[in-house]
């Protein structure tokens, strides 16, 4: 990849995670699902990157591909190099199960799952889940209990509630516990897959602030969300996915104030504090993508040129994949 959207003032430090040409396909009985196509992005220390898009555009598959958690009918190609400080650089794609289990999941790359209620072991209390995780990551039997209480308090989980079982917790409590479990091993990269779904506003803000603070200590967070307001609140950079590809990627402020891709502009116009008008038409099926720009059938700016696939190319502050971006390059 040639260009990267950088938050203003970010030093050109080497990335913690560099994804290059990531492609994921699922084989079905009579079709192939194009879930992620030729996706490249980098995550630098301290960066919070939000990946946004309509449901079913491939956002969650990206997270699961990075952790080697895809089902058996998935084919993954491309590279995703994790360069955690003090550890050997490793490619996550095609890494062995043993390597992923011992060095990547939890330790190198943490995951805050989409649905905490189903991700927590139902037969263990919050305290046991946390202590177990801490002990698996180097804490001793003696100091794990105190560390569990501290980490719970950090995420806003009242330590007095640690002895509850998952089914005795509200959605918000389960969410905070899942976050605590992901943070316990202190991973340099955290993937948060729709971490705020089903939470009310104060809890959404609390969870987002927690992710933001995480970045401010030098870790990197990849936030996968359909909630544009959430992305705007905390993200340094935003990547917009449409039909398995990144179509625009730039610093959050520039993306929200001055989008270049017509799809980004359409998504922003759908916000209730903007025009509140949906993007016309429907997203294409990932089993049956058009040959050219996948957004062209819904796009008012489409021309014959859109029959060929636009490259994700440098554009002002970031990257955009469009033959007719809303902001043409300023004349030199």
């Amino acid at each position: 990849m040639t260009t990267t959207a950088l938050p203003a003032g970010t030093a050109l430090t080497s990335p913690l995670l560099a994804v290059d040409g990531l492609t994921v396909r699922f084989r079905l009985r009579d079709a192939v699902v194009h879930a992620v196509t030729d996706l490249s992005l980098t995550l630098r220390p301290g960066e919070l990157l939000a990946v946004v898009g309509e449901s079913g555009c491939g956002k969650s598959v990206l997270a699961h591909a990075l952790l080697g958690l895809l089902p058996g009918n998935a084919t993954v190609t491309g590279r995703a190099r994790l360069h955690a400080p003090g550890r050997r650089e490793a490619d996550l794609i095609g890494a062995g199960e043993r390597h992923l289990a011992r060095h990547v999941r939890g330790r190198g790359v943490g995951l805050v799952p989409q649905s905490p209620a189903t991700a927590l072991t139902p037969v263990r209390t919050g305290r046991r889940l946390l202590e177990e995780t801490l002990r698996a990551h180097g804490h001793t039997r003696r100091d794990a209990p105190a560390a569990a209480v501290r980490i719970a308090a950090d995420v806003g989980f009242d330590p007095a509630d640690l002895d509850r079982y998952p089914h005795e917790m509200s959605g918000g409590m389960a969410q905070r516990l899942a976050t605590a479990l992901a943070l316990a091993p202190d991973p340099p990269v955290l993937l948060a897959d729709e971490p705020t779904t089903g939470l009310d506003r104060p809890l959404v803000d609390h969870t987002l602030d927690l992710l933001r603070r995480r970045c401010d200590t030098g870790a990197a967070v990849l936030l996968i969300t359909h909630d544009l307001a959430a992305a705007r609140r905390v993200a340094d950079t935003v990547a917009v996915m449409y039909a398995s590809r990144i179509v625009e990627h730039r610093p959050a402020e520039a993306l929200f104030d001055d989008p270049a891709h017509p799809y980004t502009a359409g998504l922003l116009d759908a916000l209730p504090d903007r025009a509140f008008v949906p993007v016309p038409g429907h997203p294409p099926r990932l089993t049956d993508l058009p040959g050219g720009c996948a957004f062209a059938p819904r796009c008012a700016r489409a021309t014959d040129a859109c029959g060929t696939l636009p490259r994700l190319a440098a554009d002002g502050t970031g990257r955009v994949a469009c033959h007719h971006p809303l902001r043409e390059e300023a004349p030199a």
Partner: protein
Amino acid sequence: MTATVPGAADAVAPGAAPAGGLAAHQVCVAYGGQRVLDRVDLHVAPGETVGLRGPSGSGKSTLARVLALLHAPDSGHVTIDGEPLGGVRHRLPAQLRTRVAILFQSPRAATDPRLSLADVIAEPLRATGTPREQAAARTAELADLVGLTPDLLTRRPHAVSDGQLQRACLARALVHRPDYLLCDEATAMLDASTQAHVAAVVTDYQRRQGAGVLVITHDPALMKRWATRVVDLPAA
């Protein structure tokens, strides 16, 4: 307990709801000794969009379920156009039951995974004994209204996205042309475009039918845009 927004259609004195509309009167609900709703009044007039707001656990969803006649209150009662439904418990006459429809937050929890989307939409028609051809025509009409393409109608819930499934739930809610529609965080898990589309379909239906709508949402921007009047439910 009402905080009003400009353009409020009516300022109702507690206990003195006008005849028209869906209303809760002095409704109390407790779960295992924990009182969630304490003598709550709420009135939704035909044609208006009432926003219901309150912290987590304040009983917003419970109130919606009481109004949708899915949960009998411990005391108090619900009226539709002044007609009390007090004594009625589980077996409401179909004409009353179908006048109020509800749309839930999670479409996956609100649909039978074994049914195709067409059957999901047609289920309330079957339940009231609508002839097959008539039901099929009505299903196609509604699918078109909510923006579901015919190829999606043969799929089951697991093979469609949350946004597509919620569209099917909206079609199902509108299938009997309800006079009142309750949206309980119905767009919280949808992307911005699908949310705007669902809200547009509801608003359009409301205009044509003169229906009253209750909207529950945590999103201040959505509340401001969608509701014509906002009611705050205090913490339990």
